[in-house]
């Protein structure tokens, strides 16, 4: 029942996000309407980060307690993390074509996001190839922990390798220079995405629980 409520809340949030992104927020001066992709792009990557943090928590939790519910958390979060990272990359690509003139460029943050995607696709492939639930959970947890520990290493290596993407404005140390209506539209969409993520996560974990008992 609460899961269903979460779903309706997420739907409501997404509706509000659409209104905020297309109706309330003004047209950006320099980029035009293309900029509105940001209301999809930025919430998606923030949600993906949340998902990968949960993969780490689930992985450590499983190895510490050996209870499969932690593994279900890690597995569901990994699937959603891959989904939202994919949304980030695709939306960024659609934005990059008119703005930068290319679909893809080997910039630092693009590359590190792509590497992140590859690591967790590998994680999902591993899960698909181990039949025994206990072994699957153990192996996946090890890969989940290593993948998470690797994120800062990937970040710095790719950053030193090259940089073109604009520096992070939301997670950076300085106060955000974003205009208030745009920031507000972003906030609404971010909340909506987080709700949607929570709904998907709860549903996916419930399905995984049913699969185990089947």
């Amino acid at each position, binding site marked *: 029942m609460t899961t269903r409520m979460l779903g309706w809340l997420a739907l409501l949030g997404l509706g509000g996000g659409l209104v905020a992104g297309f109706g309330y927020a003004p047209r950006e001066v320099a980029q035009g309407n293309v900029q509105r992709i940001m209301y999809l792009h930025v919430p998606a990557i923030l949600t993906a980060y949340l998902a990968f943090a949960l993969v780490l928590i689930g992985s450590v939790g499983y190895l510490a307690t050996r209870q499969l519910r932690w593994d279900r958390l890690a597995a569901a979060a990994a699937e959603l993390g891959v989904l939202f990272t994919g949304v980030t990359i695709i939306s960024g690509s659609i934005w990059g074509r008119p703005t930068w003139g290319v679909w893809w460029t080997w910039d630092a943050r693009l590359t590190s996001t792509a590497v992140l995607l590859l690591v967790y696709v590998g994680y999902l*492939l591993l899960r698909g190839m181990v039949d025994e639930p206990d072994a699957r959970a153990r192996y996946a947890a090890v890969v989940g922990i*290593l993948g998470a*520990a690797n994120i800062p290493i990937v970040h710095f290596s*790719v950053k030193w390798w090259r940089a073109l993407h604009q520096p992070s404005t939301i997670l950076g140390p300085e106060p955000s220079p974003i205009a208030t209506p745009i920031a507000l539209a972003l906030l609404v969409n971010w909340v909506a995405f987080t709700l949607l993520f929570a709904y998907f996560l709860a549903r996916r974990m419930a399905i995984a629980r049913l699969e185990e008992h089947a």
Partner: protein
Amino acid sequence: MTAYARRTWIVLWKDLLTERRSKESLNALLFFALLLLFLFEFALGPDRERLRAALPGLLWLGFVLSGLLGLGRSFIVERDNDCWDGLRLTPGDKSAIYLGKLLGNCAMMLAVEAVLLGLFGVFYDLALGPVLAPLVAVLVPGTLGLAAVATLFAAMTAHLRARELLFPVLLLPAQVPLLLAAVSATQAALLGQPLSEVSHWMKLLIGADVVYVVIGLLTFEFVLDA
């Protein structure tokens, strides 16, 4: 601690001994390295300058591809004759087994790398003498990081049906930062620049080594008790 070191040594010695007697991996790997050299030449054409510009990348591509073949096999021998159970029944901290395997894998990789480097020197007319010391200073931490993750994943995939496919699919994305750091530092070493100019890459290599080895030591027991 001495018991721990002894257990590590026993695993390492056992691996080196079986490899010396069977020569199963090393011979094929050395031949594979030679083949790679030819492939690189065919792919890039005879232009010396172009080959040299791509050399640090090619060198590490060679190491990584050899590693995929060689390191991926490091736990296959344990599947026969119930060796896996023998490892599991070993008393004490299981991470000693990981450490022994890791050192054995490093030794094997360094041997392959030495030969590959020599072949590169001969085929591409490279004066290796003056750059050897900085080159080794890059190769050793690079190899340790590669082997640290590979040893863990090799133990994990040893029992799986799609082992040959899954091992590279797991290992390669995880090794992207190591590869970037190692290629950049190798380039500097080959150009005769002092390594202090690429100290950030050296720090990243060593930092990554520490992270990978610590995770390997901590999680190996979970991989082993299959």
